[in-house]
């Protein structure tokens, strides 16, 4: 496809065929020995070799490889980067430098490589040499080394089941979120373009499973703080899920599709507005992102607030209020279980930012001025976009920028009190989202967009 750097299934299929070819080598050797000792011509193991390297098994292994590539991409690359961005970002907001342990801190590297800009940082004090990226890795290693403690009076079975529910539902989000036209897991190719007719619905479904795991975690720890945190989390997540769904309905009414690929294809066109009976006007130099559509501005505000609340980020972090509830529902988890339930909140924040990027900011399509439009020779009269940078780059940049706005909001505003949370959710956001549905329906009916 155009501009996609990574062709996930193509790469996975190639990797799977290579691995299976390696597996078939010893079988082929045995087959050859058998033929040398007097077996018939194709050898007794030829059928087995054919099955191992055949398309059925290769396709199966390729799907497993694709799932693993996608999950490693989400957790190892984006989770670590986003945690680093958050820590550096709020340190800067507090007028300090933040974490410093990085490759530049290594004496050996600095001595062998010399003063490298950004890595060596020769102009800084010796303790301020790194960029801090290795600090997140060190925190992960520390969590792996810690002992996993189960409280005596905890409901052991549910206590261990809750992180599984939370982690699996969070990773399921990334199954449904495509990263470009070629880097996707859920969907199919139809007429040369990827389609996934219910993609947004799958993402919302995966978002809606997490409160169950959080409530079970809070209850099973058998601790009054975790139970309070779990109840608060369930109340908050449940009441903010409704405006989340409703505001997305407003966009879906206007866009006419639940397919993330189709939404992004809609938004990669030049910006046009319909004026009812007067025809259409085209705005130069702007892409057709839904954020530029005045009808959807209310829906965008509601969606942004509810995504922050769904990820339990700071203005809405009452479920784990550190000062009063000692980390809320995660109190009794230790070691890597804490790493799972705590770190995967950043994954949900990434998924929320990806959802906002797909719905309102054009997903993985680059800005219009970085796209070269050439006449499409295959279909005369249409134009063919060639982006200058790959789509994964644009999508990642958009996700990180939205995440930086999350951090910015989170460390600038005070936390919302428990008695204000439900008022804000039920009395402000839900009426606003219903109003945005009304606006979107009117716009669709009178063809304003």
């Amino acid at each position: 496809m155009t501009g996609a750097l990574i062709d996930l299934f193509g790469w996975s299929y190639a990797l799977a065929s290579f691995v299976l070819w390696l597996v078939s080598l010893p079988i082929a050797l045995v087959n050859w020995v058998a033929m040398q000792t007097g077996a018939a011509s194709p050898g007794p193991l030829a059928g087995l070799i054919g099955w191992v390297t055949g398309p059925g098994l290769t396709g199966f292994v390729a799907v497993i490889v694709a799932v693993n590539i996608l999950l490693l991409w989400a957790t190892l690359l984006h989770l670590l980067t986003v945690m680093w961005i958050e820590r550096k970002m709020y340190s800067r907001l507090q007028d300090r430098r933040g974490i410093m342990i990085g490759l530049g801190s290594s004496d050996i590297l600095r001595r062998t490589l010399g003063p490298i800009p950004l890595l060596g940082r020769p102009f800084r004090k010796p303790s301020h040499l790194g960029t801090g990226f290795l600090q997140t890795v060190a925190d992960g290693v520390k969590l792996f080394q810690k002992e996993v403690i189960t409280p005596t009076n905890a409901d052991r079975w549910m206590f261990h089941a809750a992180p599984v529910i939370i982690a699996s539902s969070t990773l399921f989000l990334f199954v449904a979120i495509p990263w470009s036209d070629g880097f996707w897991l859920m969907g199919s190719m139809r007429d040369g373009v990827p389609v996934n007719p219910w993609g947004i619905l799958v993402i919302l479904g995966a978002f809606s499973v997490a409160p169950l795991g959080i409530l079970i975690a809070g209850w099973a720890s058998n601790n009054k703080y975790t139970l309070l945190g779990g109840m608060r989390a369930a109340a908050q997540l449940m009441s903010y899920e409704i405006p989340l769904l409703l505001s997305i309905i407003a966009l879906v009414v206007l866009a006419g599709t639940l397919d993330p690929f189709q939404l992004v294809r809609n938004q990669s066109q030049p910006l046009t507005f319909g004026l009812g009976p007067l025809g259409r006007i085209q705005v130069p130099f702007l892409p057709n992102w839904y954020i530029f559509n005045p009808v959807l501005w209310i829906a965008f505000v509601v969606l942004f607030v509810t995504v922050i609340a769904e990820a339990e980020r700071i203005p809405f972090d009452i479920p784990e209020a550190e000062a009063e509830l000692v980390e809320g529902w995660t109190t009794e988890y230790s070691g890597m279980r804490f790493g799972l339930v705590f770190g995967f909140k950043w994954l949900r924040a990434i998924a929320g930012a990806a959802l906002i990027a797909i719905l309102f900011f054009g997903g993985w399509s680059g800005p219009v001025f970085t796209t070269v439009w050439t006449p499409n020779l295959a279909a005369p009269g249409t134009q063919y976009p060639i982006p200058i940078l790959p789509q994964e780059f644009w999508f990642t940049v958009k996700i990180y920028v939205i995440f930086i706005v999350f951090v910015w909001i989170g460390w600038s505003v005070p936390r919302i009190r428990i008695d204000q949370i439900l008022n804000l959710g039920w009395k402000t956001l839900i009426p606003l989202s219903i109003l945005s549905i009304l606006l979107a329906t009117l716009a669709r009916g009178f063809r304003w967009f």
Partner: protein
Amino acid sequence: MVELELVTFVILSTIEVGAALMTVSAKKLVHNVFWLAITLITIAGIYLLFLAEFVAWIQIIVYAGAVPVLFLFGIMLTRRKIMEEPHESQ
């Protein structure tokens, strides 16, 4: 050669019936809710097997997401004693 769909259906329906039995037989109410959620998610899997994707995802959003949470609210807001006291469970 056994049909793959039949195998998937048998596995899913076994989990579903087992979870449904656990729903009515488990002692603690929160365990019942957990098994109810398992039952509902497995039903969504069976819908997927029937190629009814829209119903499957709506099933997950509505039932697997909201109903157990609502049910838990019912339990926790109506029962006077929320958790077992430590001296009871020892």
